[in-house]
Structure formats: structure tokens, C-alpha cells
């Protein structure tokens, strides 16, 4: 009688886990990269996410490229009595610190600068560790990935703030706030990093 302790992972035991409903399904060894249908929920089941490493690399590199215009171009435009002042993400943060609102400054710094760079660097680190087969700190890397998954959406904070300010501070010639080109690139960074976390299969870390 086979015991659970005979098998370490589901893959070794000839079982595949459904991504959506987490049901275990028998998997023929020769099936390789093919897919089956989950009997419970109808989703496509793969033994590992298809082409995970390639897709994640592509997405994280795109994110890194988009991060350049996102931070260099202005993200907000303030018109005061006819003269326009453009501010980048960093300008906005510095403004808060100068005004004394350290709390808000830190929140924006975290959401718009720290979180995206943390995500990009974190995913690159994990990808490199899989390619080079670095076996140490596995549990920490698993935790790192879970943190990356969790914080991904918070980078949208700056975008929501600008959307609201654009509507509220709209007093015509007197003063008005508008979004500026970096907004598009920044949204692109958030989107690509979120997708990179979705395409990455964390089980690859443990497939020693």
C-alpha cells in the first residue's frame, strides 16, 4: 500500500493540481507539457504553468523598461494662473516632505517607488535563482514571492490620487491639476508586474 510519505511532491506521485479549485487530478507521466480539463471546475490543468519562466522574464523586462519613462516624465501638471508646473513622482514625494506631511510622503514613496522596484528586483532575483539553481534561502524566496503577489496592486495608489485631483482641482484659469504622460507608463509598470506574478509558477523554486 503506497503511503503519502513515499511521494514528496504531487508531480512525483503522478498528480496535477488544478490552478482554480485546487483539486488533485491523476496525471499520466508521458503527458509532459500538455493539458487536461479539471472534472470539478472545467479549468485547464497543467503540471506546471506553461512557459512560466519565459513569460515571466518577458514581463519583468518590459516592466523595467516602462519604469524609465514612468519616473523621468512628469506624472502631474499643476496650472496656477496660467503657468504650468510639471512634477514627476519624486517631485510629488518631495513636496509632501517639504510641506511637513511625512506620513503621506512615505505612503506615496512606498506605493510609487519602493513597491514597483521591490517587485521587479524581487522577481528578477527569484528567476535568477531558478536559472542558476541557488538552493539556499528557499523558504525566504517563497515568502518574497508571496509578498510580491500581495503588494502588487498598491502601486495603483498614485494613479487613483491623480484621477481624483484632476476632477477636484479644476477651477479653470485659476488653478487646475491634470495628469501627465508618465501616468500611462506607470500604469503599464503596475500591469506588467502584476501579470509577471501571475505567470510565474512558484513551484519551480522547489523543483530542485
Amino acid at each position, binding site marked *: 500500500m503506497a503511503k503519502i510519505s513515499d511521494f514528496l511532491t504531487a508531480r512525483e506521485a503522478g498528480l496535477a493540481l488544478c490552478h482554480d*479549485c485546487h483539486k488533485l487530478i491523476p496525471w499520466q507521466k508521458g503527458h509532459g507539457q500538455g493539458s487536461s480539463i479539471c472534472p470539478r*471546475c472545467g479549468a485547464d490543468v497543467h503540471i506546471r504553468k506553461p512557459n512560466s519562466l519565459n513569460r515571466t522574464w518577458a514581463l519583468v523586462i518590459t516592466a523595467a523598461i516602462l519604469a524609465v519613462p514612468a519616473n523621468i516624465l512628469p506624472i502631474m501638471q499643476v496650472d496656477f494662473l496660467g503657468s504650468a508646473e510639471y512634477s514627476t513622482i519624486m517631485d510629488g514625494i518631495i513636496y509632501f516632505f517639504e510641506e511637513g506631511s511625512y506620513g503621506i510622503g512615505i505612503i506615496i514613496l512606498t506605493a510609487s517607488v519602493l513597491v514597483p522596484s521591490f517587485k521587479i528586483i524581487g522577481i528578477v532575483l527569484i528567476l535568477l535563482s531558478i536559472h542558476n539553481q541557488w538552493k539556499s534561502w528557499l523558504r525566504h524566496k517563497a515568502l518574497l514571492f508571496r509578498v510580491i503577489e500581495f503588494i502588487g496592486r498598491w502601486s495603483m495608489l498614485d494613479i487613483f490620487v491623480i484621477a481624483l485631483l484632476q476632477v477636484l482641482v479644476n477651477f479653470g484659469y485659476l488653478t487646475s491639476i491634470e495628469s501627465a504622460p508618465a501616468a500611462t507608463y506607470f500604469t503599464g509598470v503596475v500591469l506588467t508586474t502584476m501579470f509577471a506574478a501571475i505567470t510565474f509558477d512558484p513551484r519551480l523554486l522547489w523543483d530542485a
Partner: protein
Amino acid sequence: MREHAEMEAEIDKLDLENIMACPDCDLLLQQVGVARGQKAVCPRCGHMLYSSKKDSVDKTLALSLSGLILYLPANFMPLMTLDTLGLEKSASIYDGVTSLYQHNYFFVAVMVVLTSLVFPLIKLSLLFVVSLALKLQFFPRGLAQFMRYYHHLDEWGMLEVYMVGILVTIVKMNHIAHIQYDAGLLCFIGLLWAALGSSVVLDEHLFWRLIEQKKT
């Protein structure tokens, strides 16, 4: 080789109902019951596997319905009104989207409308339909599909992020203009509580088990 073949032949004897695999590290694990308020965690990688939640169907139904009721006022009524030098301007969530669109920031407008309007609505509707069906013991064919869509959309509803965005805006505008808070803000806070709450009280493990049992 022979041992391996023997193992393979006995895979059918493994009770697939009582074992599960960790989604993060693929470790095969014996399922254990968890008491209320406890959670099961993977011993190898620390991923939270499942937790037991009391009255999940009832609570999910109640919270998702509340969210749906609050949805329209929360998003279309003004959140606050800015009053500076005698000029007034109000903003709702929907106004934010139209403003971005009018300024030709189409990609940003689409992302904002999806994450703050479309996906939260779909998530609440899906939870409402599924929990209602489970409560009434009525099992249409699409139920599994609905659960799957909810699972995919889970991280794409960003109402909490919007809430913090509102707070940042308030702090930023506080010394520049007089802020008058409107009914829409109260409704939005309620919507946020309902949406967040419904995803917290949802016990996916239980829901999937119920769907599977009654499907046949």
C-alpha cells in the same frame, strides 16, 4: 524501476479525497480538519492552505448583497466637494474615470474603470449568485465557472487602494481648500467594508466541496 512501477500501480489506491498538494511548492499533504478560527499552513514553504470559517455561505451572501446595494451610490454620488475662494467642485469615482478619458489618457482610464468599477461589481455579483445558489440548494451548470472567474478576478478589485487614495487626496487638499464630505463617501466606505468583508468570510474550500457534491 520495479519499485517505481509498483508505486504507480498503487496511485489509484491513494485516497484523493483526503490529500492535497500545496499550490506554492507542490508538496503532497494529508488533509487535516481545522477548528473554527484556525488555519492550515504548508510545512515546507509556509503557504496558507485553508482556514475554517463559520457560516461562510450566509455571511458571504449577506455581505455581497450589501455591497451590491451600495454599489451605485458609492460610485456615482459625489465623494466630496472642494470649496476654494468661493468656487465649488465635486468628484465621484465615476467622474475620475470620465476626466481621465476626456484628457485622452485612455489606457489609464481603462485600467481605473476596470479596477475600481467593473471588477469589484463582477466580484460582488459572482459571490452573490454563488452563495445564493448554495443557500437555496439550487445548482445551475455555470456555478463552477462563476467560482473560477471570481478566483481570477480576486486581486484585480482595488477598492481598498482607492480608499487610501481618497485619504491621501484629503490630506493633500486640506490646507488648500475647505472639504465638504458628501453622502457618496459614506456609501463608498460601506461598499469597501462589504467587498473586503465578503472576500474574507468566503471559504473557497467549503464552496468548492459543496459545488462538487451537489453537481452530480
